[in-house]
């Protein structure tokens, strides 16, 4: 108990999530010589440790925004800052979990999870973090398996472990549960909340699923059709653990669907 209290006392300075500031970010791609505007002056801020969901129609630019936050692409206009610093390059403190698990097929589960530590050259000193991450996602015992021997849900969990092992301060999740069956999905949703609470990081979740957004996160940003801009900012003022049957969730869901232009069907 004492040890725990002490470490809790020492850690908080570095064990919090980052502050994210997105200021008038616009982005466009070239498609057959034509400019294709994808993001239109998107601005919002995420508090340290907050869990935010991005909701929006398919193709509106949610993945694009996450790639900008990861530092994989640079915006056409506007600025993205993390703790006040402009995002210039990818950094292992900001990890993106892709829509597909995209594991490296030539590496075992363990080596896939170890990828970040290996790339940063700290695998020798922090190898035990790999086992911890695997235990966290419930895949202890599958260390030696190759990706083609895993189920879709397991592969997605490996991708999650591969991100978590780096102890990110900003976790960017691009529909990480999109391809799972509904049962695994429900389990994984609960696990995601637990992981976020345990790791005390800032998290941004892109999803198509309104219920998922409301059940998991503290705040739902609704995007309009491409080029995306924010059409609603819905705080989810419910404590954890939440209950799927909560009438408040139903109200919030109606609100979100309304902003997505789907009110008529409900």
């Amino acid at each position, binding site marked *: 108990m004492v040890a725990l209290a002490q470490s809790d006392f020492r850690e908080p300075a570095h064990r919090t999530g980052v502050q994210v500031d997105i200021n008038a970010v616009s982005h466009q791609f070239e498609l057959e010589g034509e400019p294709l505007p994808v993001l239109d002056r998107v601005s919002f801020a995420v508090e340290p440790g907050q869990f935010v969901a991005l909701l929006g129609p398919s193709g509106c630019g949610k993945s694009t925004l996450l790639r900008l936050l990861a530092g994989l692409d640079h915006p056409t206009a506007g600025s993205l800052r993390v703790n006040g610093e402009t995002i210039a390059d990818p950094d292992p403190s900001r990890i993106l979990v892709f829509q597909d698990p995209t594991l490296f097929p*030539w590496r075992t589960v363990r080596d896939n999870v170890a990828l970040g530590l290996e790339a940063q050259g700290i695998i020798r000193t922090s190898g035990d973090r790999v086992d911890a991450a695997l235990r966290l996602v419930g895949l202890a015992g599958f260390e030696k398996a190759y990706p083609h021997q895993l189920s879709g849900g397991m592969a997605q969990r490996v991708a999650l472990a591969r991100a978590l092992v780096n102890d990110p301060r900003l976790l960017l999740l691009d529909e990480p549960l999109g391809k799972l069956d509904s049962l695994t999905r429900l389990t994984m949703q609960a696990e995601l909340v637990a992981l976020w609470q345990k790791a005390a990081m800032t998290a941004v979740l892109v999803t198509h699923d309104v219920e998922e957004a409301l059940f998991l996160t503290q705040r739902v940003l609704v995007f309009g059709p491409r080029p995306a801009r924010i059409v609603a900012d819905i705080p989810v003022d419910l404590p954890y653990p939440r209950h799927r049957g909560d009438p408040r969730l139903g109200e919030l869901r109606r609100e979100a669907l309304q902003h997505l232009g789907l009110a008529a069907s409900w």
Partner: protein
Amino acid sequence: MTAIESNDTRFSTAASPAASARPAGRTWWTGAFAALLWLAAAAVIEFWPEIIPAPYGRELAILAVLVAALLGLVLATGPFLGKTAAWIRYYGPWFAVAAVGLGIWEVLTAKLALLPVPFFASPQGILEVYIDDWARLGESVLHSVLLLAKGYFFGAVIGFTTGVTIGWSRAAGYWVHPILRLIGPLPATAWLPLSFFIFPSSGSASVFLIALATAFPVTILTWSGIASVNRDYYDIARTLGASRWFLIFKVAIPAALPHVFVGLFMGLGTSFAVLVVAEMLGVKAGLGWYLQWAQGWAAYANMYAALIVMALMCSSLITILFRIRDRVLSWQKGLVRW
């Protein structure tokens, strides 16, 4: 009765894998049949007089009897000989057909001489080559393997390096691609006269030609392998903090390896062709040269003997490459087996 009695012992030993692998005591009829056929072939060789007396008929007959004895041994011991026995069992029908083939060949050549005589060697004629000329043949194999190994090694290394470089660097691709397109499709043998003139020795010229023949397919396939790596792999590695070095050696190259191996197989195939031509026209050693030499002396039996050895050599080399690939690419599912 015996079946019922043994039932209970079988039951008690069923747990051990060796016992369950045994095909329940059934006689291997194919094996028995094949053994009889080999004995028959031996009898034909031994007792039917030859039209042109030739040495080593007796030795050939003994060999056939030995094969029959081997089949008999497998027949009698069942699965106790392990993997080899399983292999022999699997190829039982082939053993039977081979005995018939040997018999027909023997009758058509040595016994009746129905096939044009100097061109079609008899089985004992080929056996004679192996018994009398094994030293020269062995030396030829050694020369061939050494020459091939040198050329193939340089070709594979150069091809792989070039492929990775032009697959990774746009600038390198810009300069190398046109050269590759112009020179690459040219058969390596077209360089033969020039290279024997330019290089100090026919040996180094041959190494160059084999390397050239190997390098082209390896380069192209490595390049296409690197070019077709899923871009997301790079993005993932970059967000995880990967350096450029890491992206090349830990992402691009492993992802491209299946392609690289296709190139290595193609390169090995073309290198065989160049090897034989180079030996025939240049180095005066090795199996290609042996073939040429045998033709000069109208020693057709030697030619067949050398062809068989060459086939075995090429097949073994391909097998080795397959083994290496299976090991390196064990993470892939559905690998083609050789």
